[in-house]
Every structure is written in structure tokens, then in C-alpha cells.
């Protein structure tokens, strides 16, 4: 009793009361993000499964489509996406060090690279449109033997790269949110969890592309 003041432990402004400390809170967030990414693995896994089955059924037809894929754009896009993962990881690093300007710069760079990827994807889709490689009534194929089977591949091509592109668009939106939050001084070296979590998402989308690129563009090219 008496005049002694109660000394509270230094408050962590972003620490929720149900966590012991910010390390535990970060681990929970990380685990939660991984659970989400697991559902994404399953989601894309279904499409990769469909691809595997059809590739086994019609190997020649699927191999023949590789000649109509724009490998140059595909390869450049792979590089662009890897570079964007690199800038994303540097953004997280800047956040860890509390460097606000560097954080915003790397986030903006990541966003720009994401937009470059999507623009090149748009060019590719346009090519497919011009060449009548969009499955449906207007579909045309050089080799009449594979007319139907090649359409299956192009269905899968648009489903898989399309879903991937949608993930990229979502990622771009998340990056804009991060940039705004960073500009409003919401992050510090003590708390930057959203940067790290969205980083995980961005890298995951990168990994999906790392598998899509050889499967859709490269296999069967040598024949």
C-alpha cells in the first residue's frame, strides 16, 4: 500500500491480450497463414491433378501444343516473378530493420513487377485470341488429329494461368494496402506481421508459377 505506483510492463501496442508475447502472436499468425496456403496447395493441386491425368492420356497432343506457347514471354515472366519475390523478401527485411523508406520502395517495386507480369500475361492471352487457340467454337488447331485433345490443354492452360493471374491481382491489391499502411507509419521493427504474411502469399504464388512454366511451356518442345 502507500504511494508506490504500479509499474506495468511496457505495452506492445499491437499485442492482443490473449497472447503471452509478440513472439507467440507472430507464430500464431505464421501458422494461420500456412494453413491458408495449405488450402491453396489443395486448390491448385486439383488442377495439377487434372493436367497430369490428361497429359498421360494424350501425351502427343499435349506435347504438340508446346510449340504454340510463347516461351520467350513465359521465361521473361518467370524472371520477373522471381525478381518480385526477391524485392518482396527485401521489403520484409527492411520492415524488420524499421527502414520505412526502403520498405515502401521495395513494396512499390514488387507491385510494379507484379503489374509487368500481368501485362505480359495479357499480351500472351491476346496472342492466343488472335491465333484462335481459345477453346470453344472459334478454336482452330494446326494438326487436325489433335483438334479435340489440344483444346483440353488450352482449357487447362487458361484455367491454371488464369487462376494464377487472379492470385496475382489479389496480391497486387494486398501490396497497395501494405504501401498505404507503411506510409501511415503503421509498421515498426516491433510489428510488421502483415508485411511478412503477404510476403508468404506472394512467394507461394511464385512457386505455383515455377511449376506452371515448365509444365505448360517447356515439356514437349524438343520434339
Amino acid at each position, binding site marked *: 500500500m502507500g504511494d508506490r505506483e504500479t509499474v506495468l510492463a511496457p505495452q506492445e501496442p499491437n499485442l492482443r491480450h490473449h497472447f503471452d*508475447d*509478440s*513472439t507467440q502472436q*507472430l*507464430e500464431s499468425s*505464421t*501458422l494461420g497463414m*500456412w*494453413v491458408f*496456403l*495449405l488450402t491453396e*496447395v*489443395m486448390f491448385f*493441386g*486439383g488442377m*495439377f*491433378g487434372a493436367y*497430369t*491425368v490428361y497429359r*498421360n*492420356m494424350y501425351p502427343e497432343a499435349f506435347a504438340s501444343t508446346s510449340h504454340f506457347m510463347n*516461351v520467350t514471354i513465359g*521465361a521473361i515472366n*518467370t*524472371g520477373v516473378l*522471381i*525478381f518480385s*519475390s*526477391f524485392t*518482396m*523478401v*527485401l521489403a520484409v*527485411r527492411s520492415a*524488420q*530493420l524499421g527502414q520505412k523508406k526502403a520498405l515502401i520502395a521495395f513494396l512499390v517495386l514488387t507491385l510494379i513487377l507484379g503489374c509487368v507480369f500481368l501485362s505480359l500475361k495479357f499480351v500472351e492471352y491476346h496472342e492466343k485470341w488472335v491465333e484462335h487457340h481459345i477453346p470453344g467454337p472459334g478454336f482452330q488447331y494446326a494438326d487436325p488429329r489433335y483438334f479435340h485433345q489440344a483444346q483440353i490443354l488450352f482449357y487447362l492452360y487458361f484455367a491454371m494461368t488464369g487462376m494464377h493471374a487472379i492470385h496475382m491481382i489479389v496480391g497486387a491489391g494486398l501490396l497497395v494496402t501494405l504501401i498505404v499502411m507503411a506510409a501511415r507509419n503503421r509498421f515498426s*521493427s*516491433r510489428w510488421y506481421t502483415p508485411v511478412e504474411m503477404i*510476403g*508468404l502469399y506472394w*512467394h*507461394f504464388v*511464385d*512457386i505455383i508459377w*515455377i*511449376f506452371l*512454366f*515448365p*509444365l505448360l*511451356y*517447356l*515439356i*514437349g*518442345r*524438343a*520434339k
Partner: protein
Amino acid sequence: MIHRVVSIKVYTAVFCSLLALTITTVAVSKIELGEYNFVVAMTIAVIKGTLVAMFFMDVRRASSMTKLFAGAGLFWLAILLVFLLSDYLSRGWLLNLRWLSGPGG
């Protein structure tokens, strides 16, 4: 909270390896290796994916729980693909039993 900041050198090394592997996979795809084109392309993709997961997503330093969940993702993906293929690749095998019963069997 203790930060475990990784030096830019490590990230740059990973980034350069990823680019080198991309160039390799494109170059190898032009060479006719038959069945092995697929094997090589997928091996390189797995290496690239592992590099991204381990270094960029920091799985190598993550908690055991996170590693378990990341591993569970791969495990369930394996269940999906293995069971799917055990069906599709084995279709028609049972028809061979007719040969055993001989003509008219």
C-alpha cells in the same frame, strides 16, 4: 521480440540461383531427351520451389509446427496425385485376366 535478419548476400545468392536454374530449364527443354525432358524440368522446378520456400518463405528457420504444416501440404498433394494416378494408370490392367481363362472363357 528477437529479429533474425538475414543478410542481403544470402537473398541475392538465392535470387541468382533461381535465375540460373530458369535459364537452365529453358536451355535443356530444347534438347531432345525423351522421357527425361519431363524429369529434368520437374527436378529443376522442385529445386526452385524448395529454394523459395526455404529462404524466401523462411521455412528453414520456422517453428516445428509451421514445418509440420508445410510438410502436410506436400503430403496431401502426394495423396491426391498418387491415388489419382493409381486409378488412371492402372485402368485396363484387369482386362488381361481374360487371357488366363483362354478362348471362350
